[in-house]
């Protein structure tokens, strides 16, 4: 990697053009968290290349409150209202394929973008944007910087570290930047990570061409992000609820009703909730659940009551996580002093 790169990134704030050839952009369409097959009338033919029978999937108690997976790539702009991210893509870049559903470990694929198919190939680059819910990660990391450090420490033998995790400025925010490459594949990965609403949001750039990757990194300076985010802190607040990992612990729960499941399943069901200033749950987001599980948990959570969260002496909305179902396998204890909030 070019050793001057981090210094350049510190200095350059404005966007830089990306020197790739031009072509019209395509829209990937938006994601949906609701199984739209539920009330669909009978149809003559099963539509091709459509997933109608789903496994565990994401869903939410209302369709108004933003959820992480509702990212869109439209009119050359990637945006995710939940994370408050807006990024005008390099000209003509598109998302051809939407990402998979969010996982039981709280991982999201927000966008997979790159040049049009006509320019895919060894000279191209691509960008993967993911989010990891830090409430539910089984990895021993509490924030974006720790997560990239953990990833670096657990790279396969095929990879070489080009730049160990360090803090850099992207769009005037502190990001963790980490680069590695595969000598045999001659591919380079630049990983930029930031903490937003207790998630690590990663931008993973891949190409054989490090100059192109550097230009793409600079291009990310165009991105719009919430004010309070950084590589080590990004705990909500301001226009969105504060997030804190363990707010649903016993001492904060005034009334609790356990869900009654009609079917015995064995998957973890990670759930994010937003609690209003009165201590009632105002929004439930199922990151990965079967519909019957979501229904049973919703019916129970609607009866829960919490002590109001207090910030600076005033009641405030708070976002937290609860894991129902089976706990996932944990790799190792979290690092000391690495509580999310």
């Amino acid at each position, binding site marked *: 990697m070019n050793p001057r790169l981090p210094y350049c990134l510190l200095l350059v704030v404005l966007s830089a053009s990306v020197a790739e050839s031009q072509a019209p952009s395509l829209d990937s369409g938006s994601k949906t968290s609701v199984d739209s097959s539920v009330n669909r009338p009978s149809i003559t*033919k099963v539509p091709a290349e459509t997933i109608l029978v789903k496994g565990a999937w994401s869903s939410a108690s209302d369709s108004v409150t933003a959820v992480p997976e509702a990212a869109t790539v439209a009119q050359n702009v990637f945006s995710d209202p939940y994370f408050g991210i807006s990024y005008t893509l390099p000209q003509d870049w598109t998302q051809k*394929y939407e990402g998979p559903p969010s996982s039981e470990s709280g991982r999201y694929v927000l966008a997979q973008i790159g040049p049009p198919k006509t320019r895919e190939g060894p000279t191209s680059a691509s960008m993967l944007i993911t989010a990891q819910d830090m409430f539910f990660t089984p990895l021993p990391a509490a924030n974006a910087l720790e997560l990239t450090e953990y990833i670096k420490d657990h790279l396969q033998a095929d990879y070489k570290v080009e730049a160990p995790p360090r803090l850099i400025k992207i769009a005037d925010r502190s990001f963790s930047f980490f680069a590695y490459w*595969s000598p045999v*594949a001659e591919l380079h990965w630049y990983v930029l990570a930031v903490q937003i609403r207790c998630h690590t949001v990663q931008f993973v750039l891949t190409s054989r061409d490090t100059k192109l990757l550097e230009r793409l990194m600079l291009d990310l300076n165009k991105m719009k992000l919430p004010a309070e985010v950084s590589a080590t802190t990004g705990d909500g607040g301001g226009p969105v609820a504060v997030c804190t990992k363990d707010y649903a612990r016993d001492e904060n729960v005034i009334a609790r009703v356990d869900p009654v499941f009609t079917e015995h399943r064995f998957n973890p069901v990670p759930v994010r909730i937003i609690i209003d200033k009165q201590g009632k749950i105002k929004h439930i987001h199922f990151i990965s659940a079967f519909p019957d599980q979501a229904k049973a948990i919703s019916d129970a959570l609607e009866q829960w009551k919490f002590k109001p969260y207090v910030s600076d002496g005033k009641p405030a909305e708070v976002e937290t996580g609860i894991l129902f179902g089976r706990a996932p*396998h944990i*790799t190792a204890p979290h690092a000391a002093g690495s509580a999310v909030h």
Partner: protein
Amino acid sequence: MSKSRFASLSLAVLFVAGAVSAQTDPGVQSASRGTGATIIDPSNDPNGFTAFFNDGLNRFQEVETVSNSANTGLGPRFNSNQCSSCHAQPAVGGSGAAVNPQFLLISSGVAPSDTMPSFITANGPTLEARAPFFLNSSGAANTKAPNGGVEDLFTVTGRSDAGSCSLAQPNFNAYLAANDLIFRIPTPVFGAGLIENLDDSTLLANQATNLTNTLGIAGTFNRSGNDGTITRFGWKAQNKSLHIFAGEAYNVEMGVSNELFPQDRPLPEEEQAAGLPSNCLNLTGTGYPEDTSNPTQTTNAAVLDDVSAFANFMRFLAPPPTSSVVLNGSQVPASSIATGSALFSSIGCATCHNPSPGMTQVSNFAPALSNVQVNAFSDLEIHNMGTRLADNVSQGSAGGDQFRTAPLWGLGQRIFLLHDGRTTDLYTAIEDHKSSKSEATTVINNFNKLTTAQQQDLLDFLRSL
């Protein structure tokens, strides 16, 4: 244009054409690799399981009839009449052969009154068919009524050993018209005993550490509804053990009721109606189940049922050996295969197709199954594979686009690829991993960033497995 400039241009065009010549799947490797042997070392077989392997191998190849023979129980509905007819390539226990035996079942009198389904062809894949949804009375697919059960291709109608049983085949034309039919090819079972003997904790630890990937991949496991443990056999990892796998296949694919699946199985739509007609029940004349312990009706209490024998055969099959690769008549250099192996890991294929998901537990069967590295090239997780591969069939907790990471050992000698055998070309199979909602899209993007020569190395490597 001057002559010299024209010559230069021609050379340049030739050079470019050479540089971008397409990568080529070396194809099915025909040289014998010794696949199909037992994993048991006869000289270190203290429990005597070599004999059980051989017994299972024999029974795996027995041809079943409906009644009046030594091997009865076929039907009343079935996909074939012999385990090894479907599990044939490159040896008994494998996947479908180049010549589809199902195509001959009518002409050979096994299903004399049936009509050959249009999707069964002489040299196409050996198939099982499923309808993701029930049809309504007007023949439309009712997407509010998931089906997903196997629609057996053939019936015993017209056979001399089937009495008066007369059944219609499923209305495949109606299902096809509604785009409501999907297919599965036989999963090879080489090395299955090692997969069976991996402890859940090993797989769970792999799953957790795998989350360090920067590819957006995060799989899950299918689990037994009985005890919550990880299930691992079948295209969606829906079967817990080789016994269950064998028992289900014996019942569903050949129509033989057994101790694990004790009734004759009607079609899903038949079950919703009146079930199998009475004159198609108990065709063997022995009662149920048709396959029991003590099949030879002797006083020897130690005689196994067929299902147990099948399970033993699969359990003691050795993993398929790796080998050199021939491409266009020439042996591929070992360096290409080594590079391909490294590329396979580097671009992320190995994140799911884990070359070695772990070491087996101590086996109570044979020392050869104990403490063995399982080079299966699978994490045994189920992953979302996207709209292109989705079949809208749910099995266990696997949804319509979730599939077990197919173990790649033995890939070098497989003819038909992916769960439905839709292609014989490895490059196409790789590209089909990429679509909306697929966890593999980023990996395929990486594959597409490789040079043609690198992609060739990768294909060479895969055919060495």
